[in-house]
């Protein structure tokens, strides 16, 4: 009998951590807040009770030191999963991540390896402001020797987390906070993707929407409404960043001839440039029109909701750009109206009530 169930992305991560702890006696789960009553937005709930305080534990506020300690523990035979509630805090540990974790296997000629997972949460909303809502995926995805993934679906969240735990390399596992509450079907028996490759989440022949992390959800929303108007967008989830799966995108463009890329990061910090550039270098002339990029503005996110709510593009902007590219501008108002939501722009879902 297959083990298939519908759970949220956050629950999928919890299940993967649970299964990982069960499967790998050498795995430990560590991070600020991991065993506290809020359990990293409930993604580590109950794990300390089940696996003990030696394996599921909190840590001092020492991001660089603790990253190094986890690297050393990995060298000593442990399999640490280190959690940062916000990716911004990982900036304190870039030294250990880049200088050591990413290079260790290479610089010691393959004699040693660092099985380490670093879970980081990116996000937005409720006035997190300039220092608590950065999108740093491109900063890390450019480091040779790191694996960087940003799963979008609950199923990928589950499998990527288990794959990351099993992997003998340092993996940066990036979760968008706004994905946590979204439900999806998790099929535990699905064979592994080994942390590589994009995924086509919706097929279509008219335009390719290649999107990263939470922007994939926005692209799917846009695609659903576009479909009501006879436009079939293909949505490609760029869930693995090292390497970028340009082939899957090129294959899709082969069908559609049009490409729109959407990233949840400021334009200048977008890994989408790498994707576009690689396509430019290797698939020049495939497209009927120049591609488009939808990304955040090139400045930090202000705290005030009155302005921050205008910082983030979403399904509406994606749909509008797609309609322009398809020369269907007259549909714009109708489509955008359907995409509008009465949920406040700084809340991920209705259950959310601040402060974060």
């Amino acid at each position: 009998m297959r083990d298939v169930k519908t759970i949220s992305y956050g629950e999928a991560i919890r299940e993967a951590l649970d299964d990982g702890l069960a499967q790998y006696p050498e795995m430990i789960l560590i991070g600020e807040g991991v065993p506290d009553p809020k359990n990293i937005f409930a993604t580590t709930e109950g794990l300390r009770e089940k696996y003990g305080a030696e394996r599921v534990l909190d840590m001092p506020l020492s991001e660089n030191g603790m990253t190094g300690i986890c690297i050393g523990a990995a060298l000593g035979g442990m399999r640490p999963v280190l959690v940062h509630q916000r990716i911004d805090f990982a900036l304190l540990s870039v030294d250990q991540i880049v200088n050591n974790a990413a290079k260790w296997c290479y610089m010691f000629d393959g004699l040693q390896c660092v099985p380490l997972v670093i879970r980081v949460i990116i996000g937005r909303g409720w006035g997190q402001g300039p220092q608590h809502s950065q999108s740093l995926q491109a900063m890390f995805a450019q480091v040779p020797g790191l694996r960087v993934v940003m799963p979008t679906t609950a199923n990928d969240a589950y499998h990527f987390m288990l794959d990351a735990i099993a992997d003998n390399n340092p993996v940066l596992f990036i979760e968008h906070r706004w994905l946590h509450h979204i439900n999806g079907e998790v099929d535990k028996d699905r064979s592994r993707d080994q942390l590589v490759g994009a995924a086509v989440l919706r097929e279509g022949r008219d335009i390719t929407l290649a999107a990263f992390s939470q922007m994939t959800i926005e692209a799917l929303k846009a695609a659903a409404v576009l479909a009501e108007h006879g436009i079939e967008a293909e949505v490609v989830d760029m869930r693995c960043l090292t390497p970028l799966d340009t082939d899957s995108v090129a294959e899709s463009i082969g069908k559609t001839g049009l490409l729109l890329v959407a990233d949840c990061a400021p334009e200048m910090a977008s890994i989408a440039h790498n994707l576009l550039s690689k396509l430019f270098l290797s698939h020049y002339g495939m497209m009927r029109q120049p591609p488009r990029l939808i990304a955040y503005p090139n400045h930090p996110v202000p705290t005030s909701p009155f302005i921050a709510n205008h910082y983030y593009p979403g399904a509406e902007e994606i749909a509008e750009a797609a309609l322009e590219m398809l020369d269907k501008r007259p549909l714009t108002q109708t489509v955008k109206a359907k995409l509008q939501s009465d949920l406040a722009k700084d809340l991920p879902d209705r259950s959310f009530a601040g402060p974060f």
Partner: protein
Amino acid sequence: MVQTTADLKQLYYQMLRIRRIEEAIAKRYREQQMRCPTHLCIGEEAIAVGVNAHLSVQDKIFSNHRGHGHYLAKGGDLRRLLAELYGFAEGCCGGRGGSMHLTDLAAGFIASTPIVGGTVPLAAGYAWAERNKKFDTAQGFNVVAVFFGDGCFEEGVLHETMNFAALKKLPLLFVCENNQYSVMTRLSERQPDREIYKIAAAHGLQAASGDGNRVDEVFTLAETAIANARAGHGPQFLELHTHRWPEHCGPNEDDELGYRPPGELAVWKQRCPLLRTRQALLDGGLINDAELEAMENSLAEEIEQAFQWALQCSRPVVSSMELHLYA
């Protein structure tokens, strides 16, 4: 030492003011119009007040995510704090920062930011700039103080900063508010059993610890420390024990979550800095009920007016979002 009745009354008034403002913020926060992470300092008012009592506008302070008390005790503008919480253009950061990013340059409150440890070296750098100015034998150096928590002490940057501050004999006061928690994690899960201030002492700082819930004790410790820093004797370190009453972030109490040992909060509430000071004032016949009531009334009025002012402020223009990436 607290020399006069007027002093102690003033300290009490400042603490009460912070308490009432934080309570008012908590109450209004529940209306979900202040949409930013907000860390209240209820229970810890004595530290902000006792230290800032010795600082002039020329002196500067830096603070952290839990910054309202520091800002208010330093003389930061209440109305612009509230406007900032609401995200309005008249906020002290134009709405860009919210509760975790405060500034009031006119009051000498340079900045608070929420990356733990982030402002500590900045305070040292500012003190270095002060140290490089001509020494005024009458006034001494302008002093810079930085407020941070017991969790922050775990960040390496703190130690890097103590080393440099001691090396350059900076007019800098480190104020460690040891409330025993980092979010919901107890000190004993994060640090071995030894005293924080002794590490500072080993780094070559003049260091002391004390009861952060006794405003007179804080006042006295800070008096000496700040005088030393001002006179050029180098960096000073105070570890002050205290306790936060509300949840780490947000307007509510959270004792039901069970991360504090049963009864702990109750004990600390008995050690309330306001309660103790009021009792001392009453016991010594230094204040009477009418004066206390007058204080409450004038504060209620001030706070109400400040909210009224803040609530009629304006939303920042959307296009303003692009401004000031560069100076």
